[in-house]
């Protein structure tokens, strides 16, 4: 079965400058593929190219080179849009329409008859938590409420693939939890969800796979657990029955030593030498093991490190040509 979304060497250059146009590479040869039924997190700091990628997928902008396909068809294939939904970043809809009218307008574009439209609109507005306000004009809505309407309009056609650009933005913690649950429900219904975010906590709790972009380039892609697996930073060892001097002797390279209670120490060890050896020496010195844990990067640490590395290499794409 072909991937739900297939992106291959997708590149977007913008010409900036007034007189001598210099190319600014907003996206540099992005290649990822998203399988059906996945929740895929597209992460990166602001300006990394997340929104550019989404706009390229919606063919709001055209690629400089490379290609992408959704559900086996090239992006821009109009009939495919019958099966996808899209929520833009900080969306704006027609503020003279009510929430119901907006959804009705879009539902008409999908070709549903009046009765069908009514059912869908009612169901979706309930699902995103818009109650009596649905009869008010959008100009009266708060940012969070517009965001909910945006999610509703992305789902009006029961899409197979849903694209969400910063779906949590503008929502309070309660709202974010609701959206998170909604995304999980979508996955349970067999839909594919592709969402971009700069909030890593959401990715950690939702995504099966992620991609990290920074400076227009792909910094990493894969399962969350795989990405973090290689990144053991060190070990946390808790022992009792030893003295500080003994510790200093056995583990001179320890990064941090703190005494929890007399004789009870927490030591942070580097990855080398292997902790087993330090433990053996401490036991030989009379200590006993309480616990030994690997210290991993959080997604945050990973993110910051990768972004910093990518950012310093962003300049002058033309130098490579």
């Amino acid at each position, binding site marked *: 079965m072909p991937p739900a979304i*297939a992106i*291959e060497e997708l590149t977007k250059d913008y010409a900036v400058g007034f007189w001598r146009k210099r190319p600014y590479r907003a996206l540099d040869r992005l290649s990822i593929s998203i399988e059906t039924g996945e929740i895929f997190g597209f992460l990166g700091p602001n300006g990394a190219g997340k929104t550019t990628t989404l706009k390229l997928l919606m063919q709001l902008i*055209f*690629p*400089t*080179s*490379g*290609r*992408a*396909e959704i559900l*086996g*068809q*090239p*992006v*821009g294939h109009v009939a495919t849009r019958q099966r996808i939904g899209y929520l833009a970043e900080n969306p704006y809809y027609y503020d003279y329409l009510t929430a119901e009218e907006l959804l009705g307008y879009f539902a008409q574009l999908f070709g549903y008859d009046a009765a069908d439209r009514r059912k869908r609109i009612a169901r979706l507005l309930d699902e995103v938590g818009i109650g009596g306000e649905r009869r008010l004009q959008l100009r009266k809505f708060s940012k969070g409420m517009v965001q909910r309407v945006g999610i509703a309009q992305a789902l009006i056609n029961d899409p197979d693939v849903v694209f969400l650009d910063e779906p949590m933005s503008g929502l309070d913690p309660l709202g974010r939890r609701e959206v998170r649950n909604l995304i999980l429900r979508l996955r349970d219904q067999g839909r594919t969800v592709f969402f971009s975010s700069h909030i890593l906590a959401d990715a950690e709790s939702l995504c099966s796979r992620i991609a990290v972009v920074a400076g227009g380039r792909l910094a990493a892609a894969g399962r969350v657990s795989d990405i973090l697996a290689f990144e053991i930073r060190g070990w946390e060892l808790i022992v009792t029955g030893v003295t500080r001097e003994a510790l200093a002797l056995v583990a001179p390279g320890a990064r941090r030593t703190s005494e929890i209670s007399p004789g009870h120490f927490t030591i942070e060890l580097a990855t080398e030498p292997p902790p087993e050896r330090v433990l053996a020496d401490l036991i030989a010195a009379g200590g006993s093991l309480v616990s030994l844990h690997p210290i991993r990067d959080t997604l945050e640490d990973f993110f910051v490190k990768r972004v910093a590395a990518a950012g310093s290499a962003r300049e002058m794409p033309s130098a490579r040509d």
Partner: protein
Amino acid sequence: MTARTHQGPPAAPLAAIAGIVLCVAGAVSLQITRDRLYAGQSRETARILYVQSGEAVKRLALDFDALWADVYWIRAIQHYGGERLNDVARRNYELLFPLVDLTTTLDPYFSIAYRFGAIFLSEPPPGGPGRPDQAIALLRKGVAAQPGKWQYLHDIAFVYYWHFRDFDTAAMWFQRASELPNAPNWLKPLAASVLGAGSDRASARFLWNQILQSEEEWLRRNAARALSQLDAVDAVDALQAIVNRFPPPAGGQYSWEALVRRRVLRGIPVDPVGTPFELDPATGRVALSRNSSLSPLPQHLQTPPS
């Protein structure tokens, strides 16, 4: 992945380009057809469309009086020129005065409109509407707007001289023109000679020669034509004298060929534009050919049949 199709911005499909070309060609040809079939407005429509009361137009023109004056000026010339292109029988210059009147109401300093208007309004048919009275009215309006402009007074005098044959009034206006500052110094003697000699062709020649110096192309053309007409009339007189001196033998007919054979003339005499003069075989009367572009001569230059 499916076949490698270009995913950049769509190239302009051939159909669109063809569509554009067809639309342009079609629109232009419809335009040309319509212009041809319904050639120009009917006179009535033109009068209603183009010509309204000067004051009304002045008010509607907002601050663009001078621009509107230009528009009406273009229409005036177009109207005059367009009529000249018609067959003689169909010429009708009735919009000329209203159009130049409007032009000068909108822009009282539009001197070319006064002068052009005066000259061509006075032209007798078929060259013009033959309305020297309108010409005078127009020029007087110019004088009211710019009393110091000697050209207007000069033109008034000329209309009286050439079209009304009212030499006293003409001389009076030449005199008044000569008294204005910046007036050229040939106006005073001109006034005198007009007063004295009246139908003197020399004064007329002098006047037309002055106009020949004008910067305006069409004024120069008009003056050149008038001078050619005077030359033609002089030539007619001279030829008539020759013809009278060498009548054909008794019972014979007058002809140019006979005179050429008799070595009286070197060749068939032609007028300044190259058209041969007419010689009546029976009466021996020399005249300007009707086919000549200088014809018809102004009233006062035509010699009465003897």
